[in-house]
Structures are given as C-alpha cells and as structure tokens.
C-alpha cells in the first residue's frame, strides 16, 4: 500500500509546530514525507496519522504493540438493533470489548408514569419488540398482584396468555436463528427463520389483530377473546412446525461451517453466568436448568408438561441447540393450551377494573360493538358512567410495590412496579434480560477472534429495544 497521493503532503510538522507548543513533530524519526507527527502526552505518544503503512507511521525502532481500536456500530452488523461495540484488538485477537448502548432509549418507563395503568401496556409492549406479549403479561401480572386480583383472572385468559407467549417464544427464537445465521453468512438460515416466523406472526395477527406490539394482554385479562378459526389455524401450524425444525437440524446442526464458527466459541460457564446475571438459554446452555416456568411457576405453568432443554458445553453451539429444543417444547405447551381451552370470560368480572370495551369488526375497522354502544347509550346509564370513568380516569391501584418475573425467550423478564394509590403507575422498571445479558459480551469475546465477536453477540440474542427502553 502506498500513501495517498491525492492529499497534499503538508505533513503534520508544518501544520502543528506553531499551534501546539508540546507538539513537536520534528522529533519524529525518519525522513519520509508521510512520516506521522506525534505529541508526547501524559498517557503516552499520540500520533497524528495522515495515511500510509503502519510500519512507516510507527517509524523505525518502534516496537509498539500493534493494538488498535476498532469501532463497530452503532449500526449493528445485523438486525439486533443499534448496538455499538468498541474493540481493542491486537492482530485478530480481541483484547478488550466495550459496549455502548442507549441509542434506542425512548424513555418508556418515564412515559408510563403519565398514562393510566391500562395505557402503560401500549408502551411496554414496545420495549422488547421481539417478545411484546411477555412484556405485557409480566406487567399485567404485576398490576394484578398490586390489585390483589391474581386469583380472579379467568382460566381462559390465563390459558390464552400462555398460548400466545409460547407461540411468541417460537417466533423470537426464529428471529434469533435468522439474524444469527445471517451474521455468519448463512443466508439460508435467515430465509428459513423469517419464513416460519411469518407463520407465527400470522397466527398472532389473527388472535390479537396486530403482528407485533399487540397490546393484547391487559390488567385483568385480555383485550378480546379468540376469533373463530383460531384453533384450526394453530393446529395446522402445530402439524407443520416440527417438520421445519427437523429441516433446521438437517441444514445446520451437522454443517461443518456452522459448527466451525460456533463450537467452543464464546464459552461462559454457569458460575460466570450467575455472577453476571445472565439467565435464559445462555445459562441453560451452561448446564443449569434454571427456567422460571419450572423453578418459580406463574400462569399455571406447573400444570403443563414440558422439558427444560440444557447443554453442558456452554458455547455458542450449545445455545443454538438449546433454542431449537425450546421451540419443540413450546409447541408441546401450545398443544396442551388448545386442549384446555374452555368457553368462558377472558376479563376479570370486577367491573371497576375490566375495560368496558366489547370489540367487534365493523365496516370501518375494529371498534366497540354496536350492541355495546346501544346498551350504554340507550339503556344503561350506569354502564355509560363506568365506560366513561374507566376510559378517562382509569382505575386506582392500592399503594405498594411488587416485582414479578417471567421467563422470556431471553431470560428473566422482571417488572418492578410501584403504585402510590393513584390511577397512574408511580414507577415501572423493566428488568430486561437483554440488558443484563449484554454485560456478558466482554466475558464471551475477550481473548477470542474478531470474527467471534459477531457470533458472541448473536448467541446472547439481545434486543436493543428492550436493552435501551
């Protein structure tokens, strides 16, 4: 490589001698016209580089370490979100990894404090946008615990919550497979992952009305019941999906390149995981079967039959295998949910809490059903008052604080919710698993190759919407 000939060889010596007293470029060894100028500072010699080979720039006799700083991002090399990595590398070896987050900080927690308890769902569903139903459910479980109505939630609502959450776990893991595969150059994995995820999103759209950011789970129950034809659509998916998972195994599990990139790469053992707060598939791939659905059950998970897949290798490949197995287990749970569905209400009976809407699809989209409008406008003034007060004011929640946690696709998703007795949350804090798990990336990547940094970040499966909130 030759130094750029387009730039004027003004040299740092000409530019700097009269500007900075301590910047004495004339001391630079060598006589080449492109010799880098440098200044002595307290932290060592600082070079001003204008182009050229490293050997020329550093000059003769300088056996400095070849440590350079590489900035990666904030546009992430893949689609996880806006994550910035600052890598210090020597050759191909990563010496230090630093993560910079906050590019997607939208103040969701603060905004929740200015809306009523029900409206907060629409904010929180946008935190971790690959598992919105988990955000909604965890938040609603917190509010219900604060209200003391946990045992009044209708059975059907809880079963549907579990069912949509498990469907979403599959979708989330599929995005992980797709983006993780794309980061390794396995574009077929990307095509496969997004292809099946689309089917899950179709199901969720059928159930909730939206592909993402559903705002479907509400304090007290659900926004609406399942529409006709849901069970048939899900059963078709249950028949189809196991074949697809076999296809992933055929395509990837034994594939030499896939294994070469992932086996024995980014190892973090269980003790390291716990010290760094890492939960979810990363912890289970290190051998600890810690799954909140089993260890601290909620939503009746203790009554479902499923296994917690684990692995012992604690590397990226083990995390891949654990996630694929979890998809199979989620399918089992969805099937059990379908068998359990009994007719019944999907919202708590307490009219002081239950959102009064009776939604139906009309000519101009979805809205309150005409029957409901007729009732509140024509026959029941009490119902009208309830509707008006609940929608404008919301309901009051007794003072106190709770912390509820559920097992999201990425690990422990916790909600610390504080009420001061008013109609708005006093404080909502999201303990997002991606936020905590990202802290492990330096431990996963330092001492490894630059290329493995990509694998490491992918194997953690961070979603920056949840990290930054």
């Amino acid at each position: 490589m030759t130094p750029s000939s387009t730039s004027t060889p003004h040299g740092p010596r000409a530019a700097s001698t009269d500007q900075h007293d301590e910047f004495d470029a004339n001391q630079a060894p060598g006589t080449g016209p492109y010799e880098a100028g440098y200044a002595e500072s307290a932290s060592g010699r600082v070079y001003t580089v204008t182009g050229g080979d490293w050997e020329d720039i550093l000059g003769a006799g300088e056996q400095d370490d070849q440590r350079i700083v590489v900035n990666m991002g904030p546009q992430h090399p893949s689609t996880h979100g806006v994550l910035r990595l600052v890598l210090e590398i020597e050759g191909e070896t990563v010496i230090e990894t630093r993560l910079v987050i906050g590019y997607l900080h939208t103040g969701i927690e603060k905004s929740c404090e200015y809306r009523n308890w029900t409206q907060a769902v629409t904010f929180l569903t946008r935190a971790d946008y690959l598992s919105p139903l988990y955000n909604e459910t965890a938040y609603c479980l917190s509010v219900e615990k604060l209200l003391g109505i946990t045992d009044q939630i209708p059975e059907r609502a809880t079963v549907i919550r579990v069912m949509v959450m498990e469907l979403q776990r599959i979708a989330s893991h599929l995005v992980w497979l797709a983006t993780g595969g794309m980061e390794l150059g396995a574009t077929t994995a990307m095509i496969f992952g997004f292809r099946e995820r689309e089917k899950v999103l179709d199901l969720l759209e059928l159930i909730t009305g939206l592909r993402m950011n559903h705002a479907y789970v509400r304090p007290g129950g659900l926004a609406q019941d399942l529409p006709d034809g849901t069970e048939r659509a899900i059963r078709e998916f249950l028949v189809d999906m196991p074949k697809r998972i076999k296809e992933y195994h055929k395509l990837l599990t034994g594939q030499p390149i896939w294994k070469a990139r992932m086996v024995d790469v980014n190892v973090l053992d269980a003790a390291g995981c716990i010290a760094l707060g890492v939960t979810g598939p990363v912890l289970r791939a290190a051998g600890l079967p810690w799954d909140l659905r089993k260890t601290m059950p909620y939503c009746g998970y203790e009554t479902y039959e499923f296994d917690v897949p684990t692995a012992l290798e604690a590397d990226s490949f083990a995390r891949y295998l654990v996630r694929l197995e979890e998809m199979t287990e989620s399918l089992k749970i969805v099937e059990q949910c379908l068998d359990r569905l009994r007719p019944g209400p999907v919202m708590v009976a307490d009219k002081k809490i239950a959102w009064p809407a009776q939604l139906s699809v009309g000519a101009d989209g979805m809205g309150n059903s005409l029957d409901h409008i007729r009732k509140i406008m024509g026959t029941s003034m009490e119902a009208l008052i309830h509707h008006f007060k609940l929608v404008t004011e919301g309901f009051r929640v007794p003072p106190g604080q709770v912390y509820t946690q559920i097992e999201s696709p990425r690990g422990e998703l916790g909600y610390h919710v504080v009420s001061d007795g008013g109609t708005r949350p006093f404080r909502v804090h999201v303990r997002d698993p991606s936020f905590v798990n990202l802290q492990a990336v330096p431990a996963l990547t330092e001492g490894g190759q630059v290329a493995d940094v990509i694998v490491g970040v992918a194997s953690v499966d961070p979603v920056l919407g949840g990290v930054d909130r």
Partner: protein
Amino acid sequence: MSGDAQTPNGAGNHNGANGAHGDDGANGDDDRGVGELVAAEAASRRPDRQRDAFGAGGTGDTSGFGRLVAPLPVLADSERPFGDAAADAVYDTLERVFPQLGDAVERVVFDRGELTLHVRREDLLALSRTLRDDPGLRYELLSSLSGVDYPDDLTGRRLHSVVHLTSMTHRRRLRVEVSVGDDDPTMPSLTSVWPTADWHEREAYDLFGIVYTGHPGLTRIMMPDDWVGHPQRKDYPLGGIPVEYKGATVPPPDERRSYS
C-alpha cells in the same frame, strides 16, 4: 373548586382539622412541609373517609383541581411473624447470622407476599455479603436494581435504590431497599458482591443521580454523556408539545389532567 385551595396563604391551614388536603395547587408538590405530609397520610388512612366507587373523595369535584390528593406511598412496618413461612425463615436466619441486623435494617415490610428490608447504606455491603454467602440465605443472583424517586418521602431521603435478589438454591426472592437524600446521594456499589450490578447501577445513576461509590466506571449509560439532569426523577419534566387535531389542541402528557 374548593375554597381552601384558593386561599392565598395556603400554608396557614396545614395543621387545621380539615386542612390535610388543602392547598394542592399553590405551593406545588416540592414545597410541602413534613408536617403536611404526616397529616395527609393520616387522613388518607382514616377509615370513615367518604369515597365514591372510583376512590375519589372530598367534594365530588372531578375537575382535577378539587381536594384530590394522591395518598402517599407509605407502608407501615410489618409485625413479626409475617405469616409466611419462607419470609419468616429468611428473617430468622438473618437475625442469627447477622448480629447487627437491628441497626442495619431500618424497616421491614412484608406486603403481598414479598419481603422488603430497608437497609442503612452504611451496612449495605456487609449485609449483602451475608445474604449472598450464608448457606441458609444464598441469594446468588442479583436480578434487578432500580431507582425510585419519592419526592414526598417522610424520611427526607427521596432517592431509593431497590435491589431484587434471587436465591436459586432456595427459590426465594428478597427486596433490599436503600434510600438517600438528593443532597448526599451516595451509597456503596454492589459490584464487588454481584458483578451484574454494574450496568444496573450505571442506569440508576444516569436516570436518578444516585452515586454508587466504589463502582468501577460510573458513567451515563442511557443518556448522552453530556446530558444535564437525571430524567427519571419526578421533578424532571417529561417534555412534549401540544398537538393540534381537528381544531382542538391536545396538551402534552405531563400537562393533562391527572386523577391520581
């Protein structure tokens, strides 16, 4: 509008028999004296207080400017036994293995099945090590650390740092809460006990201004490095502009009517 709220000298009726809920507009939340807070709290607990079906009391005026005052987020100290086997076991073990517990813990609250220890900041590190290491406790995992700002806190220490610990061995949870005032918002960092506290504490510093001494690199994490202020504090405005829609103007969220 109630007449009391219009009294120019709102401070005059703080201690009056009916003055507990007066003056909700003139002085603003930040200027309330402690005396008024105690009175407001006592009134909100009064069992015979008239409340309608939606919890609103007082004049029935729903303009938002009547005597509607939010009940303060204050809970009383819980009596032993807590009535929960796990919580009692944890507290018994703590009393046995941490002799200075009486001094370290200012308040114990057992509410909705969750045990909360309000800990003095001087004893936080010692207590944390015991909580992590003792075989009967074994809180190996720090699940969450979050700040909460209580501007009306009765102790005058408005900034709370709330830690949620998980014992994977015993499958229990525990909440440890430390409060500091905004004039001296320092408390020891937990990174030496649970390394995962690193980013949590940076977030609480960034958004609440709680300074964790001993933290390896306490810098902003969500906001830009040159940001001024701590956005999640209650006196930090949400921001926003009014939006016009079909001729009407919708005010920004923090200026809309609050029923709390």
